[in-house]
């Protein structure tokens, strides 16, 4: 009896060992498979979370055994009914289904039956809880949404703010990115406005009739911007901030300065630089660089072209190519504007003889006037400098002696020919009424010497000048 039990014990140990080895082997194989799948998946993500090796992967068929039956629901705490049915066809058509992801790779806590208790107060609460599951694989995008205006609203308790599944769906998540180019697929672009319209329907209706929206919806043109091209995708910012406003011209310029895109439709790519060159755009650009959160009433693109209901500029009803249509926009800030006023804005034209010829000719005038003035002045000043320098150096060479001697006869003259100033005003040479007499004392006269000398030297350069007789009049020196 004892030997039998000992044999049984050894046998059991062997079975457990073999069993655990096989289990471990399969578990590692499964891990390898998931890693392969991740690398095939081009969405740049961290590797899929390690499906705990202790728990074997529950196949989707197991889940669908119950959840594949229509009508499976659960009642939430507030009495709302949460549908638990998953259409197997819808799931297998989704990007996750195509790539062969298992239900429990998202619903990690539901691998066992009975499932742990799920206590959501209402349907929205259930969505908000379940949307956290996306973070496990798509944490990059998930983190971006934390910076979005949607998350800001969520954080202050507005539960309706969009989360992942509101836009992407849950079991029917579609492929939106081209795995090769990592760009949004053209057909996915077409459905973006409709996605946003689930909440923002009023804006969608405006967009729908705009030049962009109509092309997207009616012509399936994927060149035109959808909501996300201006508002961003996951980190959608608040478009009512001053920062967004100041940055908005750059948004529009993203496409409207792209020649490959604009040439297809014959649209000018000069719209940004002509805007920036004009005073409105200049100020907006300046503020955007220097104080991006500054409030300004200076118009940005959408103040004239509208925000969502942007129409063609040559649209007869709303196009701002028509001055009377533009005047309406002008009057928002310039209430006194009259019919001539809109043409004060150069309508993105670069001044030419045909458009804004006055500006063109003013500019042309200065193109010639500035060099002419500058040239004339530089020539005269330069020649004057040169002449003075030449005269000074020549004088320095030839007249070092004479300058000192020249003072001599003058002082003689002063002392001999001219009576002292104290001799009485009547004896002095007559002074005209508007000539003033300034008597400088010794020190001052010393200060005044150098200019006199240079002056006299200059006079020597010009022998024709008959200033020899005048010179003595200039100073009257006395002891």
């Amino acid at each position, binding site marked *: 009896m004892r030997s039998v039990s000992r044999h049984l014990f050894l046998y059991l140990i062997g079975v457990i060992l073999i069993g655990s080895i096989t289990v471990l082997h399969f578990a590692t194989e499964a891990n390898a498979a998931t890693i392969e799948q991740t690398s095939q998946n081009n969405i740049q993500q961290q590797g899929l979370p390690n499906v705990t090796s202790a728990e074997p992967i529950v196949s989707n068929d197991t889940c669908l055994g119950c959840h594949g039956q229509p009508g499976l629901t659960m009642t939430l705490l507030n009495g709302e009914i949460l549908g638990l049915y998953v259409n197997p066809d819808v799931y297998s058509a989704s990007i996750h289904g195509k790539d062969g992801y298992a239900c429990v790779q998202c619903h990690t806590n539901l691998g066992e039956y009975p499932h742990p208790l799920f206590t959501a107060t209402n349907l929205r609460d259930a969505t908000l809880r379940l949307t956290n599951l996306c973070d496990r694989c798509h944490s990059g995008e998930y983190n971006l949404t934390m910076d979005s205006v949607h998350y800001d609203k969520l954080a202050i308790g507005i539960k309706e703010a969009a989360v992942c599944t509101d836009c992407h769906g849950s079991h029917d998540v579609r492929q939106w990115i081209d795995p090769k180019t990592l760009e949004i697929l053209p057909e996915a672009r077409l459905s973006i406005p409709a996605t946003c319209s689930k909440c923002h329907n009023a804006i969608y209706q405006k967009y729908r009739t705009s030049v962009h929206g109509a092309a997207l919806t009616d012509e399936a043109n994927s060149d035109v911007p959808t909501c996300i091209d201006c508002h961003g995708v996951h980190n959608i910012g608040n478009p009512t901030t001053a920062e967004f406003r100041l940055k908005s011209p750059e948004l529009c310029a993203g496409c409207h300065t792209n020649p490959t895109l604009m040439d297809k439709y014959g649209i000018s790519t000069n719209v940004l630089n002509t805007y920036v060159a004009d005073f409105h755009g*200049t*100020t907006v650009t300046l503020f955007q660089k*220097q*104080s991006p959160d*500054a*409030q300004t009433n200076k118009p940005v693109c959408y103040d004239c072209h509208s925000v969502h209901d942007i129409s063609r500029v040559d649209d007869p009803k709303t196009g701002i190519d028509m001055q009377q249509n533009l005047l309406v926009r002008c009057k928002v800030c310039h209430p*006194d*504007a*009259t019919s*001539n*006023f809109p*043409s*004060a*804005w150069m309508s993105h034209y670069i001044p030419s003889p045909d458009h804004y*010829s*006055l*500006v063109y000719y*003013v*500019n042309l005038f*200065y193109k010639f006037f*500035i060099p002419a*003035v500058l040239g004339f*002045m530089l020539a*005269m*000043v330069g*020649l*004057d400098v040169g*002449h*003075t320098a*030449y005269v000074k150096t020549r004088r320095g060479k030839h007249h070092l002696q004479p300058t000192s001697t020249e003072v001599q006869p003058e002082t003689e003259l002063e002392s001999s020919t001219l009576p002292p100033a104290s001799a009485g*005003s*009547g004896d*002095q040479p*007559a002074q*005209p*009424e*508007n*000539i*003033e*007499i*300034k*008597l*400088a*004392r*010794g020190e001052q*006269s010393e200060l005044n010497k150098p200019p*006199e000398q240079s*002056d006299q030297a*200059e006079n020597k*350069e*010009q022998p024709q*000048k008959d200033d020899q007789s*005048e010179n003595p*009049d*200039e*100073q*009257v*020196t*006395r*002891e």
Partner: protein
Amino acid sequence: MTNQHPPSSTSPDHPVRLVRTFPRFSVSQRSEHAVFLLCIAILLLTGLPQKFNTSTWSQAIISSPARLNLFQQIHHITALVLSALVLYHLGKAIYLIARRKLPGDMLPTFQDVKDAWNMLLYLIFIKKQKPAFGKFNFEQKVTYWFLFFSVGIMIVSGFIMWFPDVVTRLLPGGVIPGAIMAHSTEAIVTTIFVILWHFYHVHLERLNLSIFSGWLNEEDMHSYHSLEYDQLIHKANTDQDPGEIKS
């Protein structure tokens, strides 16, 4: 005889030199120049950062809408002061013309063209003698008339920019961008002109502070305004009135 330096303090030990000074600018003209100088300086200091708004130095100055607003307000107030000054200047000229009292010294004549030509010949050593100038030589006339028209353009275009909605009631809208173009470009021309032409002639060529002091000494009078000097001396010599000298 506005500027007298009586020899009351002279003592026999100190040699005293008699320097004749000639009145050149009246108090009104001197204060006009001072106000004009201040206005132009403020307008350029507040205007040029707005023109060169893409440069980093300008963006460091105009860093916020509040700062820009301040700059524009200073610019506008100074522009009003300058406009008032111009009106005063023109009003005075009209008053003097009406009374047949306007001294025509500043009016450009054909002689100025000849003077400029002769000066050029003198500077390139073809002529040995500088042309003789009257009260205002051609260089000073160029300065005055250049600034006269610059300021005219600046004031007109400035007010067009300031009140676009009023202007466009009478004139086509294209006047506004034209005025903006003229205003900012003319400012550059004026700046270059003042620095290169005016500063050279009053600071570097010789330090001429007569616009501040009001008088010019005899040496400068003689060498730069010999015609006027001769005229004054001649006039003084012809109608001799010894009692006039009060020294």
